[in-house]
């Protein structure tokens, strides 16, 4: 028996994380406590900053000196991560950021689950740079996707989000030990690094200039339009031209089904329960769990639409991912949202109700 916070922390440690800095916030504080307790045991550093800005700043600094860095927060903390997130993108810092979502703007409902930060994670930096966001639905996936996030961060030299939520992080569940030991059958991430690897700052090492300004290959500020265009284009393309490698979904398609239910995170579990019940009563229905929320796995989604006349999308927000699906599919496909923002998890019955047109 274990909760999501412990699974995420264990995943980070097993991925080689040796530096964590964060600030307490419900429902992500469990991860902070685990990391600050565990890291010094293995010679790493766990640090509680005076705020989220400082915590993220410490992570970036440590990364330039060679650390494998990790941090976690919730939506309000992500607001404060925003400026340094841009810096991490510009400096090409590999960092994993676990977001344990809670409900509402501002303080909102601090102890209630939600999926309201899905678009926020995508658009959370100035400049509108593409993000990589992974979302687990349960404890064992929390562990394996955390490890995967570290691999992606390293390969693409960029921040990677793990989009979780209060219920996945704070609920204790029984998990099969086998499921923790072995990752699902996901495509491997190449160990090759995209672009140039910079040596960390070190005594007798190559001299490095890291900067958040538009810069040339030596890390010096430049105003040359051509160099600036190349830099920005490269930063965008290293994500957007690698959609196939970044796409990760679980499809459960049934022939002759004209309804596809598509979900992610905690709501995907309600979806799975609903699909089970529908099939038990003889209904034909397909489902898709999206693990790689961003970039949107467009190709896989479009390839799964053969014969589909309607898509039902349960999510604990007002339809943030529904808009992404709407732009991908023909207008003759009906799109139905099942949405809740009242602290209560979407029930399988609500999804079944939507299936039956209620």
């Amino acid at each position: 028996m274990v909760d999501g916070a412990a699974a995420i922390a264990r995943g980070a440690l097993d991925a080689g994380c040796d530096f964590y800095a964060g600030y307490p916030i419900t429902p992500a504080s469990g991860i902070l406590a685990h990391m600050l307790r565990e890291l010094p045991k293995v010679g790493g550093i766990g640090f509680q900053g005076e705020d989220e800005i400082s915590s993220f700043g410490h992570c970036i600094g440590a990364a330039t000196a060679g650390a494998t860095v990790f941090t976690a927060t919730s939506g309000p903390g992500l607001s404060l991560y925003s400026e340094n997130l841009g810096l991490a993108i510009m400096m090409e810092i590999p960092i994993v950021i676990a977001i344990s979502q809670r409900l509402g703007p501002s303080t909102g409902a601090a102890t209630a689950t939600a999926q309201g930060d899905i678009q926020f994670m995508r658009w959370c930096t100035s400049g509108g740079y593409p993000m990589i966001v992974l979302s687990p639905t349960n404890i064992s996936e929390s562990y394996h996707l955390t490890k995967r996030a570290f691999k992606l961060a390293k390969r693409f030299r960029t921040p990677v989000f793990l989009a979780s939520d209060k219920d996945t992080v704070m609920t204790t569940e029984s998990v099969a030990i086998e499921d923790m030991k072995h990752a699902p059958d996901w495509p491997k991430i190449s160990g090759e690094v995209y672009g140039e690897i910079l040596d960390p700052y070190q005594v007798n090492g190559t001299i490095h200039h890291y900067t958040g300004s538009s810069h040339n290959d030596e890390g010096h500020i430049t105003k040359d339009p051509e160099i600036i265009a190349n830099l920005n284009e490269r930063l965008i393309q290293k994500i957007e031209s690698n959609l196939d490698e970044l796409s990760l979904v679980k499809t459960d398609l049934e022939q002759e089904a004209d309804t596809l239910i598509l979900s992610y995170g905690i709501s995907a579990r309600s979806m799975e329960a609903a699909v089970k019940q529908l099939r038990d009563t003889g209904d034909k229905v397909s489902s898709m769990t999206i693990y790689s929320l961003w970039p949107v796995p467009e190709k896989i989604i479009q390839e799964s639409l053969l014969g589909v006349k309607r898509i039902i999308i349960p999510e604990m927000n007002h339809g943030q991912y529904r808009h992404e699906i709407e732009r991908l599919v023909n207008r003759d496909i009906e799109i139905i949202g099942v949405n809740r923002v009242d602290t209560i998890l979407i029930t399988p019955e609500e999804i079944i109700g939507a299936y039956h047109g209620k």
Partner: protein
Amino acid sequence: MENKALETYIAEDNLPYEFCPGCSHGKVLGALSDSLKQQNLDPSEVVIVTDIGCVGLSDKYFVTHAFHGLHGRSITYASGIKMQNPDLHVIVLIGDGGCGIGGHHLLNAARLNTDIAVLVLNNFNFGMTGGQHSVTTPFDSITATTAHGSTDAPMDIAGTAKVNGGGFVARATAFDKDLPSLISKSMKHGGFSLIDIWELCTAYYVPRNDFGKKEMMVYMNGMKMESGVLQETERPSFQKSYQQIQKQASQEKPMTGLELETIFSSKLDKPIRVVLAGAAGQKVVSAGNLLASAATLSGLWVSRRADFPITIQTGFSVVEIVISPDPVLYSGIVEPDVVAIIAQEGKSKVARLTKAMKKTSVIYFSDGLDEIETQAKVLPLAFPESAKKDVRKNISALTAGFIAKELNIFPFEALKEASKKIQKPKISEINLSVFAHFE
């Protein structure tokens, strides 16, 4: 000693400085270069972290490692670099503007005593953005944003570092001949060091306020902000303290999950949703853990959600447990099968759930909590006669025992085994004596 020193640490190819004529920044950068030479440092041993503003242009003038980040945050990056690699000498170049927006970082780095050297290039206004007032702008000053004179009390940057425990704190001016050796002294100090270096901004502050070197010294005396070393303490740096923590922690075992093997069996064929509703201090969550662990030991799947106010030692405490023959998909509870109410706080909290319950479900209540709006069967928590003396102190464990008996979905032995496996020996002993009432 091997001579590693360079004649200069300034990247001469990038000269001349972009600073305005008469600006003090160049003087301070020169003093820093001289100090690095005095200290016989290889350029790869030094990281210069620059803030934003005119001072933020400085990184490109050094042949050392450099980092140019965001406004006010330079101290956090420097601290992170030093934490990861204590062999590096990490220097922050920050302005008075950065000390305003990043004041929180400055005073906390001083508290932490992280071993970095902060040089504040303090010229009393924002130079890069047009001469707006900053946190150090003197009273009555004319700036782009105080056309009628500044009324805010100027921040004493060195004083702030001093009262917050900074290991080495000094105040100086860009014109001081001994600035290089003062910088060397601050860098050699094993902890947080800060030098508040007063400067002239010839583009804005000087012409608008008729403020030259002489006026600056008069102002310094008038404010009683004396120059020189203001504090030098031998408090261990963060780096030293944390090495001790690592040494101590390395003796401890790494975290593991709670591994529970299946040693009992169950005939449960569909999920059952159980809610315990009580108050803080009744050990409700602990009772939930016992039931969940007993089910796991019996080969069942569980999820256990706890709900309590942010102030955990007051108000309601509710635990929701889903026990299922298959892995739990939906971990929420909208219509419970069984609810046990042991305090008014919990009763109010779960009123929405009890109202939704159908005739086939059961609510158990403890004394005086039986007025419930529901269609469910409402029955008393009928503990054995012998258990009466335990009700006040151990009602949650009694309720766990009662529910285990009533539901009969796993052997009662599993509950006892769960207590032995997951609880501290002292607590387990108490709970086992509570469970004995049911046998």
